């Protein structure tokens, strides 16, 4: 345990300590008086040589933005302007050949050989569309397509043949009138102030399919909802009331075959079989801004995003899946102190099933159906070190708060939770972004470290490289990947 704490602290300290040295200020350029700007009329030109129409200076360098002739003679139709397309190619390698293993609760040891190999190799297209087709009306949609190439785990799982995947993410209509806004369709609702580590960010389902997705911002999936927002002062100055309801709750999708997280279950895990009873989720949030602070109160009737699977009476049948309805009460607040921002989320969940999944992509193997009340807290701080550097720290903790004597398998009788740290440094006017993030559990039993460098080449092209290192003790699920070192590359074209 201490090893992982030391790794985390050490890595953070090294990065923060050496950044100023790496990026220390150079000697400023001394401009001689005879230096001129691109042959035009800039500074440093002897005054008697400067014509009076000096206003032309600098413009040529920037494609002369004031030149009306530069504008397209045939404007793009309004309905076409709303498209943003991003094409990408991504490759992720597991670079280390070694033996990983996990020790089960009964003492049994399971060893798994890990070979250095390509894990993901895929092309992607993300399309986003936003069109205000009439006053007060908006259509917003986004979709993605994936083509899984050689050596991608989905390529391998599909008998080594090319596999494609298409998904409609957002698709909703919005109508805004007066102080009201109504949205109907596939969308997301995000509660909580602590980025990436909030106990209140539980409305939408998520999918952690592989190690190319380890942030909840990327894993969140849209769901069909009706959302109504009220922006008037009826409930206080600078306040807002937001509600949502869905009559078609969805659940975290099962792990896809071939994924590094995939395990062969004894019974097939299939979609939830909906009965005749009406399943619905709904919630309301009131929020208000004060000087230097935002405060929100919320309540919701929710269905847990993760289904519970159990063995069917007939061993050859699909696994039985059940869902669980619970009630959530929450409070979130932030407070800015100059360059420091503090965030706090509190969640009281009444009637959740005992089991928690702090490790993305894993389902507990010995969960129980006992229902408990749970108190969750997320606390985070963000600090702008200087103009280029930013650091965010957060910790999330959860604890069962009701005593259930029949609980013989209570997994969360102690405080459990995760911590997250993100540091970023943007250089070259943000064309080069360096970032490092670490996350782990508060018992310091595992650590996931990710470092990335993203280079924006121009208005369209960008490239990135990232490194993922996993460390975990044998009794945690992450131990199946302990010692893995992943290196990823990506290139994107956006227009």
């Amino acid at each position: 345990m201490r090893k992982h704490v030391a790794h985390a602290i050490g890595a953070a300290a090294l990065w923060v300590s050496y950044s100023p040295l790496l990026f220390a200020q150079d000697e400023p350029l001394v401009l001689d008086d005879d230096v001129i700007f691109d042959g035009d009329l800039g500074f440093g030109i002897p005054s008697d040589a400067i014509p009076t129409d000096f206003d032309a200076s600098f413009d040529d360098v920037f494609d002369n933005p004031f030149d009306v002739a530069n504008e397209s003679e045939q404007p793009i139709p309004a309905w076409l302007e709303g498209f943003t397309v991003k094409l990408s190619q991504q490759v992720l390698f597991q670079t280390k050949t070694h033996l990983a293993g996990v020790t089960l609760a009964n003492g049994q040891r399971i060893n798994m050989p890990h070979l250095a190999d390509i894990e993901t190799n895929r092309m992607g297209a993300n399309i986003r569309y936003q069109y205000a087709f009439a006053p007060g009306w908006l259509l917003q949609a986004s979709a993605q397509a994936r083509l899984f190439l050689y050596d991608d785990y989905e390529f391998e799982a599909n008998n080594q043949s090319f596999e494609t995947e298409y998904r409609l993410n957002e698709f909703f209509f919005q109508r805004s009138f007066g102080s009201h806004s109504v949205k109907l369709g596939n969308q997301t609702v995000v509660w909580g102030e602590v980025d990436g580590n909030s106990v209140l960010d539980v409305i939408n389902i998520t999918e952690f399919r592989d190690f190319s997705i380890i942030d909840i911002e990327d894993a969140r999936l849209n769901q069909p909802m009706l959302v109504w927002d009220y922006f008037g002062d009826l409930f206080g100055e600078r306040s807002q009331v937001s509600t949502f309801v869905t009559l078609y709750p969805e659940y975290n999708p099962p792990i896809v075959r071939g994924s590094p997280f995939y395990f062969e279950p004894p019974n097939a895990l299939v979609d939830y079989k909906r009965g005749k009873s009406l399943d619905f989720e709904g919630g309301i949030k009131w929020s208000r801004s004060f000087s230097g602070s935002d405060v929100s109160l919320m309540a919701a009737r929710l269905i847990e995003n993760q289904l519970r699977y159990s063995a069917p009476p007939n061993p050859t049948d699909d696994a039985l899946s059940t869902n669980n309805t619970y009630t959530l009460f929450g409070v979130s607040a932030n407070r800015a102190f100059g360059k420091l921002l503090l965030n706090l989320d509190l969640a009281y969940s009444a009637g959740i099933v005992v089991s928690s999944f702090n490790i993305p992509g894993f389902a507990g193997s010995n969960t129980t159906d006992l229902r408990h009340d749970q108190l969750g807290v997320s606390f985070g701080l963000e600090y702008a070190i200087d103009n280029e550097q930013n650091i965010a720290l957060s910790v999330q903790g959860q604890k069962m708060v009701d005593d259930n004597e029949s609980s013989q398998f209570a997994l969360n009788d102690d405080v459990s939770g995760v911590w997250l740290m993100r540091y970023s440094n943007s250089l070259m006017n943000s064309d080069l972004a360096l970032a490092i993030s670490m996350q782990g559990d508060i018992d310091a039993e595992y650590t996931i470290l990710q470092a990335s460098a993203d280079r924006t080449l121009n208005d369209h092209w960008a490239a990135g490289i990232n490194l993922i290192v996993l460390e975990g003790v044998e009794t945690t699920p992450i131990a199946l990947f302990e010692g893995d070192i992943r290196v990823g590359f990506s290139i994107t074209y956006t227009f």
Partner: protein
Amino acid sequence: MIAFAATHRTVLNRLMMNRILTTAAVFYCLIAANTSLAQSLTGREIMERTDDNQRSISDSSFNRMQLSTCRFGIKDVKITCAERPRVKALESVGKNYGPNRRDTKSVTIVLEPAAERGIGMLSYSYDESGRDNETWLYLSALGRVKRIASGNSEDDSEPASVFGSEFTTEDTETGKLEEYEITLLEETIESGRDVWKIEMVPNKERARKTRYSKVIQYIDKERFVSLRTEMYDQYAKEIKRLMASRVELVNGAWTARSLTMMNLVTNRLSNMAFLEIHTGIEIDDNFLTQRTLEDVAFRETELEKLRNQLQ
């Protein structure tokens, strides 16, 4: 997906360090005067006069801007971009509030590049000493409006870059002249115009908040436009230089519509071109709220109303 997240975090980080562009930038560049001044004006009086004009120009404004940034080099004693500039297209709306209308609320929306399209930032800037400015932004990756902590000019010494450019909030700041010792050094010529050369040295209190040991301004004597500004570090070395051009009479005030900030340490420069400047626009107070960031249908409807006023 990692790259996708990183891209958005890059934008986020970029904006987290940034404060409002709209009025502050306009304030700085729109140094103008509507009357000629007697030769007996002191440096402080000249700067005070320009401050008053700046605020009048920025109130109820709707602007379209192009922000271009590149690495520069010197070739045959000419400074040129050494790479193709990165260009951002922005739209901003601002309005003054509060006592003497010295507080500002503003919204800036990124139109281009495509990767950053739709990112919006809302900022409340307060004139009151000790009251933090407030900034919120909306990123689709986060799925919500987020308050940003980036400090303010009153309490923090680190300036914030404006949309990842070489302009910082300190460079674009106005007012607070009482925090400087202002000296009229000489009358000279800059860019073919008669100018006052004015030195601004921060007092002890201000010195703790600024990275500049002094600032030299070259103010057009007739138009009251700053044609050149030199910023010096604590070792008295010039580290940044701002050049103004395209000085035009806009809505009754002389205005520099093109500003180029050169960072002499990183050898990078940014140009802010004010393609359109409209003042006296009727702006609904509700537009300058968080709703504009997250309610796109509302935002587009209100923006269309503003655009219609320009015709």
